[in-house]
């Protein structure tokens, strides 16, 4: 049984890794080699494609832009979602259920629907082509999710803990930061994972709301389509570089993610 399982999971892992491997393979080949010969690994190993990216500011700035708005998005999301999730998990108040559901509906809104209005909104308030505009736009999708995930984690912390802390003379902010947040660290890990995941991978809004200064790497990649066809090598190298931040994030939160998923709140 366990043998069969191992074979199965290995096969699936290969299925997951093969396309990624092919991308990596391509990134170390020159265009002549890519188009000229078919080989399972690079025959003339080259870093030229990566060199193009690391030496051209319009390339590497794309990475900085993406990382900037992704980090901004995660910070804003956590800052506003933490108190809100606390309110939802601890108190009843007028309109709480409606508000909660309304928040969730935003997770269900197709980004394409918001494309044009976002463009107009951010242009009219002068935020077009800024990192904060993309971060705010992504918040529309990441915040409801964050509130939902965090509410689930907070509800599993018994309220007696809050009460004990107040009796022990903790003020609310001190209690929240010193006692409560460490208790839901898994939830914060999962929230970061998801706001990162959403913001990093999204392209439609990010591309629409930026032109030069805050243009994300994903949008810059379309540049590789030039007059003489696609520059496959550089495109692959750029692709490989976009995978790395994701792997870093999942590595750091891997232990939290399984716990967080188990609550069924993603």
């Amino acid at each position, binding site marked *: 049984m366990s043998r069969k399982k191992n074979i199965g999971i290995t096969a699936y892992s290969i299925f997951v890794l093969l396309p990624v491997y092919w991308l990596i393979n391509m990134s170390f080949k020159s265009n002549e080699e890519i188009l000229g010969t078919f080989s399972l690994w690079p025959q003339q190993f080259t870093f030229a494609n990566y060199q193009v990216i690391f030496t051209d500011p319009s390339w590497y700035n794309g990475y900085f832009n993406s990382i900037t708005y992704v980090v901004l998005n995660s910070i804003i999301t956590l800052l506003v979602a933490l108190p809100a999730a606390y309110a939802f998990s601890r108190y009843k108040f*007028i309109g709480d259920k409606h508000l909660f559901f309304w928040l969730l509906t935003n997770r269900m809104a197709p980004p394409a629907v918001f494309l044009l209005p976002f463009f107009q909104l951010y242009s009219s308030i002068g935020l077009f082509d800024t990192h904060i505009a993309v971060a705010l736009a992504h918040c529309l999708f990441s915040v409801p999710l964050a509130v939902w995930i965090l509410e689930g984690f907070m509800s599993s912390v018994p309220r007696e803990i809050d009460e004990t802390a107040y009796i022990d003379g903790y003020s609310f902010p001190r209690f929240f930061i010193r006692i409560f947040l460490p208790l839901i660290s898994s939830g914060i890990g999962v929230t970061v994972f998801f706001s990162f995941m959403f913001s990093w991978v999204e392209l439609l809004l990010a591309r629409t709301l930026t032109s030069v200064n805050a243009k994300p790497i994903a949008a810059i990649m379309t540049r590789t389509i030039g007059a003489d066809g696609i520059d496959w090598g550089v495109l692959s190298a750029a692709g490989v570089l976009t995978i790395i931040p994701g792997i870093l994030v999942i590595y750091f939160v891997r232990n939290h993610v399984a716990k967080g998923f188990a609550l069924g709140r993603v």
Partner: protein
Amino acid sequence: MNKIQNNRAWFLVLPVFILVAFSAIIPLMTVVNYSVQDIFDQNNAYFVGVEWYRDVLQDPRLQDSLLRQFMYSGSVLAIEIPLGIAVALMMPTRGAMASLSLILLAIPLLIPWNVVGTIWQIFARADIGLLGYAINGMGIEYNYATNATDAWLTVVLMDVWHWTSLIALLCYSGLRAIPDAYYQAAKIDRASDWAIFKYIQLPKLKGVLIIGVLLRFMDSFMIYTEPFVLTGGGPGNSTTFLSQTLTKMAIGQFDIGPAAAFSMIYFLIVLLVSWLFFTTISQLDKNKT
């Protein structure tokens, strides 16, 4: 848990409310506004009522892409849910291998969507891609850029590659939450592996699976970037889904009125289906307590 009635809790929710209202209500109002007007320029706009809605609903482009959309969402769900469960069941449960497989599986989820498209473009092309080359090498003619069926299959396969991990991770965590005693009791009751799956694992996965189906439905229904990069919606319109039709209409052709009406219909469909799921979930929660 008995919650305390406290309307001051609104202060805690206020930042979220303002932020989301700013990014959701204003744009949504704009869309509604456009959807009922015919706009020539800044100063000339006429109220046209539901005319755009009627037009859009009769538009074969919308009908076609809606049909394609449902077929697409249906097929990816039909593959990803069972496959995801199977993968979760096969994942190692502890030790370094568990961490490793967790990270491996999560990789596709964290790749920018256009890069996912790019990866599959490179992987599946008949001339330079491993997959395309291999299939053609086996004597089967395959070219996703010219053959509609091939394009369709490739897009579905890409989605399976991209998103099965999400279902697998959800189920994996759901499985980890089952106490050992259940497996031990089942062993003593002489349950077969199939019976353990059917009577212990599957019922415990119900919660996460509903979330999984909901997420996959929503996201596959909104899919845009990956097929856009891979096939550009073609050949013909064979892989043009709702978001792409909408984007073409709004940005490509500046048919703002119909595009807005289209947006509203689109949003309502997603909302309706999601609401159905949401009620099911809360019903389940109620049954538990």
